[in-house]
Each structure stands twice: as structure tokens, then as C-alpha cells.
């Protein structure tokens, strides 16, 4: 069975109770404290057999699924490390999250996830929402 990361119904990703967005501000929360930059990175590679397969795929063209999976693993691990960093600082959320990638050697890429860790509280809002003013839907 193919495993996939689920597409969330709302615009806010939440991991380990930390909300992560790529915007600088929340629509539904206000930032009460800025804690600083947090980041997480990883460098991953596939094993030599998958590298050979990936090289052979270049003959026929199309998606190199071995490297797609490698980068997906890197992305998830980098985010998890960034979130762990944010939790250690006592953050509720990460804003302005970005990814940066760099090739380190043949078949291995670094993926860095970084953002600003903040503390937030729900805004007093007149928009329709549940009691706590949260519009997000946990997985």
C-alpha cells in the first residue's frame, strides 16, 4: 500500500502541538512573544542500489521516485527537528517557515527547515469558529 503524507483541510499544519505556517502572521492568532529563529536540518542519501536504479531511470525519463522519497524523508525529518527546537524554547507556533536545500555530494542533499518561533493567543474574532476560536483541524 502506498504511504502518503495527508493533505490537511486547513491552511495550518500542526505538529506536536506546534502550528507551522509560511506566512508571517496568523489570521486567527496574535503573536504575543517572539522567541527567535529555529531550524532543523538533515542530510539523507539512498542506498547504493537505489542510486543505481535512479541512474537507470535517467535513460527512460520521468519521476525518479527514489529521490522523491529521499527528499520527502528529509523534509519530514527537518521539520520534526525544527519543531523539537521550537518546543525546547516553549513556542506555540512557527511562522515564516522556509525550506532551503543544497547538494552535498552525489546522491545526498541537505534540507534545512527554518522559521521564527513565537508564542500566540487566539484573537478575539467575529468570524465563525468553535469556542476556542480555532479554525484548524487536527489530523
Amino acid at each position: 500500500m502506498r504511504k502518503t503524507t495527508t493533505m490537511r483541510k486547513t491552511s495550518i499544519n500542526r505538529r506536536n502541538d506546534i502550528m507551522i505556517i509560511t506566512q508571517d502572521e496568523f489570521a486567527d492568532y496574535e503573536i504575543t512573544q517572539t522567541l527567535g529563529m529555529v531550524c532543523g536540518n538533515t542530510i539523507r542519501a539512498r542506498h547504493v542500489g537505489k542510486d543505481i536504479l535512479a541512474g537507470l531511470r535517467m535513460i527512460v525519463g520521468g519521476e525518479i521516485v527514489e529521490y522523491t522519497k529521499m527528499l520527502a524523508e528529509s523534509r519530514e525529518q527537518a521539520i520534526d527537528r525544527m519543531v523539537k527546537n521550537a518546543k525546547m524554547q516553549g513556542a506555540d507556533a512557527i511562522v515564516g517557515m522556509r525550506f532551503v536545500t543544497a547538494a552535498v555530494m552525489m546522491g545526498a542533499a541537505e534540507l534545512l527547515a527554518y522559521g521564527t518561533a513565537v508564542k500566540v493567543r487566539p484573537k478575539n474574532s467575529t468570524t465563525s469558529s468553535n469556542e476556542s476560536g480555532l479554525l484548524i483541524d487536527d489530523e
Partner: protein
Amino acid sequence: MLEITAYLILAVIFIVWLIAIVVGTVMMFPFGLIGFFVLIAIGLLVIKVLRERAKNAEDDYYAKNIDQ
């Protein structure tokens, strides 16, 4: 299935090639000892890497649970 079969064949060919190299270094004694010890050193590093990977639960988690 095709993939695993290919890996097995490659692994067998690699082992045969490695044995040929080791025999070659031994036959070229005494100068072959240099190559022989290089192979031993690389082999120890490979064992270290394999052991670390086998114990790494974090890598197993991401390899098993993340597809794309």
C-alpha cells in the same frame, strides 16, 4: 521482486570481486600488503556504518512511514 533479484546478483558479484582483490593483494606480497590493509580498514568502516544504520530507529521510522 526484480529489484531484489538484481540486488542479490550485484551483491554476489561484489563479493566475488572482493575476494579476487584480496587474493590479488596476497599474491603481490609484500607490496600487496598495502592494498590488503587498506581493504581491511575500509571493511571496518563499512561494518561500523552498517551497525549504526541497523541500530538507527529514527532512520527506520522515516524510511518506513514517509513516501512522498
